[in-house]
């Protein structure tokens, strides 16, 4: 079973060992690979005054990314922060605030969150955007599905025009929207 979650909800989530000890909390999500999958996390200490930690958590050390915590076996899965970041294609924070443009030249809005599909791996499947009037009249945030080969990068974000047909306004229906959108892309052969 896969679970959809927003990246802003993952940040700040405690990192807990299977013995129940909280040893860190998630600071940022690090993306890697060509498919926008999560490569790991940078970490901060627990507590109000704790700062960033020198070690990071590679995805391979994650036992589970749940709704309330990231579970690891023990602290031996941590690696130097720089090594975890080195695997990254771009940092997730970079896409926040980026404008999303369709490949036929329509501005859709600004990225305010990233949606992950979490299973054995965690993949980026969509953006939550603050829409332009072209997309929505009432200014409410919407979720827009992404092709499965789209890398998460800090450059201008260009999505296939068909994505507009699969916009939803809540996570409950978004998984189905992502699948339908990707099916459409495969049928039309327009996926890049």
């Amino acid at each position: 079973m896969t679970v959809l979650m927003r990246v802003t909800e993952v940040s700040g989530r405690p990192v807990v060992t299977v013995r129940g000890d909280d040893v860190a909390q998630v600071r940022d999500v690090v993306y890697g690979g060509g498919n926008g999958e999560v490569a790991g996390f940078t970490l901060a200490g627990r507590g109000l005054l704790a700062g960033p930690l020198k070690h990071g958590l590679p995805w391979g050390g994650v036992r589970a990314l749940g709704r309330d915590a990231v579970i690891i076996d023990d602290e031996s899965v941590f690696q130097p922060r720089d090594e975890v970041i080195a695997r990254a294609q771009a940092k997730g924070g970079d896409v926040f605030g980026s404008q999303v443009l369709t490949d036929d030249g329509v501005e859709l809005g600004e990225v305010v969150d990233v949606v992950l599909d979490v299973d054995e791996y965690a993949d980026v499947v969509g953006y939550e955007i603050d829409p332009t009037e072209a997309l929505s009249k009432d200014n409410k945030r919407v979720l827009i599905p992404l092709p499965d080969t789209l890398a998460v990068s800090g450059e201008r974000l260009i999505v296939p025009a068909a994505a507009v047909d699969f916009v939803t306004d809540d996570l409950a229906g978004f998984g189905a929207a992502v699948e339908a959108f990707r099916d459409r892309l495969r049928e039309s052969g327009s996926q890049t």
Partner: protein
Amino acid sequence: MRFSEGRGHPVVGTETADTVGKVQRFVVDASQARVVALVLKKTPDKADVLRWADVITFGPDAVTVPSAGLLVEPDGELARLTNKKRSLLGQRVLTDAGDNIGEVDDVDFDPADGSIRHLLTSGGEVDAARLLGLGSYALMVRHS
């Protein structure tokens, strides 16, 4: 029996037939799913922990023990487990899938041997076989 029922049970010394204290709370080794000791109140002196191994019976109305001399001031591993922060009641319950399933409201244990049978949580009953351990953040249980 539940912790809520056992709490307040008088602890009676069988050699002298006098009350040596009352059950205040249960000391648990979560990774073993077992009650390992009882913390008592109203004891004759500072020693207020009764090891489960020294209990004769945990009966429906009272706990029997040979004498008050068996009460100890805990040290080592028992002192660590006796820390109030390690009490099961009110503990956050987290699955190894990373989902919070509530807090421990009560615990069902076997008074014959101190083994824990179930946790009663705000998210439902959790079989003790799922217990993984208790840490600084949560009581961990296997994802069902």
